[in-house]
């Protein structure tokens, strides 16, 4: 818990940051509780990062270990970049939630339990032979036991709701307790409830009563030895909202279409953990936001390609298995040179793998997973809010260079959330792209000299009728052409066009010294963990710097030079070394890997441990 920790003598303990884990049955409303608490801390001025972790089963048996749903988050000052490694507060709604998380809780941390759910039966389901409350196994923690079921039933006995409905309110009772512990206002949640339960007043009143009573309970019973005041972050002035990575992607697609003055066409097929992009966009289906739920992954991308041919700004989203199914059509987008943004929300693989868990293991597929010489722009988002910037940039490149662009996110940043600057996002400038040549001069594959992009003449435009397709085409006219030298030219032109995207990449920022002992090179969702770890290591006096790669193809032009200025290169990634292989092949360097494939994000502790090891050898 932050730097200053808890001082028992103080009534209020000031800390830089805190990590809390909410855990319970998947029917306990844990995700909602977590999201509401995240919004509450954000409104209070904290920076934050969240990590929802839910089971992939429809609904695992109640009280079972497999059915535990978790929501971990870190909040505090500007240095919060990850959802934290080890929670210093665990809220466990049942024994299974305690059993699943206890290994990750350090001695001295706070554990808040809903004691009413610690019956012999549910203890058994969680695999406890004796009650952890009695056998001393929790003696190193500060355990706070609260009979939440009893309290909520008493609170809402006159509400007119059924017992089942009343018990559903217990997550907000718990939220009231936690808000008191951190000195946070419950007002934002009450405001949210007024909107959420606008049509069901009895539920609205019950939930408002629940959170208010929870807070009052914590205040009056003095179950906490002290309260915490978590340091606020200093952020750019403006309007903010909390966004998950999937929301940020959806907003970015809407933004890009607006900046292009085009209709958005989003073709998608349901797949975890990418479906929320479809959900968000479907909610805003309107004049300029066209959403199509296709019959399969292939049709999702094929319809998007058709829409792109017809002049819409087209995008599709998917995850692992769906990405594989889209490979063939991606090849068509490459050869027909149409703009398209594909979001791949990576999850644990291969095959169905770990549908709800995170990984970074689709990198090589994004780079090379197509037949033929099939170069494509590949980018990766660094955090939940960065999914917005990355997707907008991907759209700009796709249109400017007439190419498909893959944006890699993953389950961690797609479901996790962080504050997002709304004012900045609403004030982006329109994209500018080259005008079509006059009709008489139009040739479908006659390229722009600078970018090598071919003109985008949409179906319906008089005088520009033309045919494109998957067959190799003539270097200018686009008619079918099988001649050997023409294929050589076209193969090289397609490669060169993608290579020229390097001009769009800003100089790589080095965090730390410009040269030295160790350089940590990260890409995608590991940004927060790496930056936090490098920061810690530097405070310890270790000569370590870091860079973060957003453009995976083409790679930044300064990457080789920068890496050669360090004695050792460390590449942490959530796979068995895919980016490390790319670095080896491109720069003939021999980086050290830190590889995690647990379905859980790399933490700053993982990275810090490895950095320290590099210095102790």
């Amino acid at each position, binding site marked *: 818990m932050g730097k200053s920790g808890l001082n028992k003598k103080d009534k209020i303990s000031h800390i830089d940051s805190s990590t809390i884990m909410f855990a319970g049955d998947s029917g306990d409303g844990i995700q909602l509780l977590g999201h509401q608490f995240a919004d509450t801390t954000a409104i209070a*001025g904290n920076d934050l990062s969240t990590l929802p972790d839910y089971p992939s089963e429809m609904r695992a048996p109640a009280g079972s270990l497999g059915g535990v749903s978790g929501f971990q988050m870190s909040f505090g000052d500007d240095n919060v970049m990850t959802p934290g490694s080890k929670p210093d507060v665990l809220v466990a709604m049942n024994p299974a939630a305690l059993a699943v998380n206890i290994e990750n809780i350090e001695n001295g941390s706070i554990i808040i339990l809903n004691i009413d759910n610690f019956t012999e039966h549910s203890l058994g389901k969680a695999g406890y032979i004796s009650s952890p409350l009695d056998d001393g196994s929790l003696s190193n923690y500060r355990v706070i036991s609260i009979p939440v079921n009893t309290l909520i039933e008493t609170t809402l006995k006159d509400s007119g709701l059924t017992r089942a409905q009343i018990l559903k309110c217990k997550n907000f009772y718990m939220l009231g307790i936690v808000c008191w512990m951190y000195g946070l206002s419950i007002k934002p949640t009450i405001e949210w409830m007024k909107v959420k339960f606008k049509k069901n007043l009895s539920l609205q009143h019950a939930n408002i009563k629940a959170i208010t009573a929870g807070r009052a309970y914590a205040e009056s019973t003095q179950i906490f030895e002290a309260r915490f005041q978590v340091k606020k972050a200093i952020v750019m002035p403006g309007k903010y909202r909390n966004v998950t990575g999937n929301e940020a992607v959806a907003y970015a697609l809407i933004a890009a279409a607006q900046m292009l003055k085009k209709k958005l066409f989003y073709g998608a097929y349901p797949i975890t953990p990418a479906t929320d992009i479809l959900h968000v966009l479907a909610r805003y289906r309107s004049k300029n*936001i066209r959403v199509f739920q296709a019959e399969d992954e292939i049709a999702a991308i*094929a319809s998007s390609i058709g829409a792109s041919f017809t002049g819409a700004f087209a995008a599709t989203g998917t995850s692992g298995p769906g990405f594989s199914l889209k490979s063939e059509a991606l090849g068509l987008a490459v050869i027909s040179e149409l703009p398209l943004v594909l979001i791949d929300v990576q999850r644990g693989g291969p095959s169905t793998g770990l549908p709800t868990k995170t990984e970074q293991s689709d990198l090589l597929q994004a780079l090379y997973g197509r037949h033929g010489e099939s170069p494509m722009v590949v980018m990766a988002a660094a955090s939940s809010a960065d999914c917005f910037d990355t997707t907008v940039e991907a759209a700009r490149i796709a249109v400017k260079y007439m190419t498909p662009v893959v944006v890699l996110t993953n389950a961690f940043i797609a479901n996790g959330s962080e504050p997002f600057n709304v004012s900045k996002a*609403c004030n982006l400038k329109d994209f500018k792209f080259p005008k079509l040549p006059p009709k008489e001069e139009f040739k479908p594959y006659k390229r722009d000299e600078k970018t090598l992009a071919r003109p985008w003449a949409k179906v319906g435009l008089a005088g520009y009728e033309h045919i494109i397709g998957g067959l190799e085409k003539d270097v200018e006219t686009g008619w079918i052409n099988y001649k050997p030298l023409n294929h050589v030219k076209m193969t090289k032109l397609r490669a060169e066009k993608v290579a020229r995207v390097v001009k769009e990449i800003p100089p790589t920022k080095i965090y730390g010294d410009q040269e030295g002992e160790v350089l940590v090179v990260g890409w995608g969702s590991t940004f927060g963990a790496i930056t936090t770890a490098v920061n810690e290591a530097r405070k310890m006096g270790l000569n370590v710097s870091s860079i973060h790669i957003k453009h995976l193809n083409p790679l930044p032009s300064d990457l080789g030079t920068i890496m050669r200025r360090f004695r050792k290169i460390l590449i942490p990634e959530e796979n068995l070394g895919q980016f490390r292989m790319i670095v080896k092949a491109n720069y003939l360097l021999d980086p050290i890997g830190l590889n995690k494939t647990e379905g859980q994000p790399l933490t700053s502790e993982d990275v810090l441990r490895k950095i320290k090891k590099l210095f102790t050898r």
Partner: protein
Amino acid sequence: MDNSSLKRTARDFASKCPVKWCPGCGDFAVLAQMQRTFANMDLPHEKFAVISGIGCSSRLPYYLNTYGFHTIHGRAPAVATGVKLANPDLSVWVVTGDGDALSIGGNHTLHAIRKNIGIKIILLNNRIYALTKGQSSPTTKMNVITKSSPSGTIDYPFTPLRFAIGLDCTFVARVMDTDMTMMAHVFEAAAKHEGTAFVEIFQRCLAFTNVEFDHFKDRTKKEDIMVHVEHGKPLVFGKNKDKGIVIKNFKAEVIEFEQGKVPPEVVVYDESNTELAYVLSGFFYPDMPVPVGILKNVEKPAHEELMHDKEKEAGDITLKSILEGPGTWETN
């Protein structure tokens, strides 16, 4: 532009690309008729989009000077869906074959029809994979010797019309590639149809399945082999118009009568009757005459129309209105 003033001929719709099909291929007739149909429509060139997959038939877009997209195997209905949804004002045609539309692309054909997307699917059924030089397709008959079935096929074929009618397709027709008059009539009706139009062409392939459709070519017999289905007219066939279709106990039968004296029990065709269309789609020669013409033609709102209504209802949603909605906070 006043489209009614558009005066064009089929030649105006021919592209500069040399046509590369085997001499005598049935595809030529389809191409010629599409050019003619397009010329007769009150739509300028740029409003046509012809989308194809892979196969002999899928070369067709190259030979039309409209917008065209020669896509990948089986995916034409999905690409065409994206084209139509991105701009519903377009006349979107899919040219496909039995392997392309019914085997590798079966799912896309199925869902385009189910959703009633306003595309015209012209399925050139030659009962063989011809471009890959002769393997059995989903419409190849039983026990036919092909390169992939040297001892005869053992897969039961299926009937494209039954597939389309089973999916409640709003326009279903079948035409012989040699019958240009009927093709003109069917294409014109398909072009006007809102929603999915599914047209099966019995298409001879000289290289592999020429004999397949031989019996239809025999001028002396073809009137006895086929029944021309016309809305509001009795199902009468035969060179002397002396045979008719009756339905007893849900079973169709052929009865014979004196020329010109059609008995009242002969079925008068109704193109809005799905059950009737389904019964006819199961007719196979020699037991029954093969039905050709428009088997089904009904009105039902197309997907893009329903989509348009929903979008109109929602109005204009901007990024600003979404992002600045509930859930924000401000810092100074």
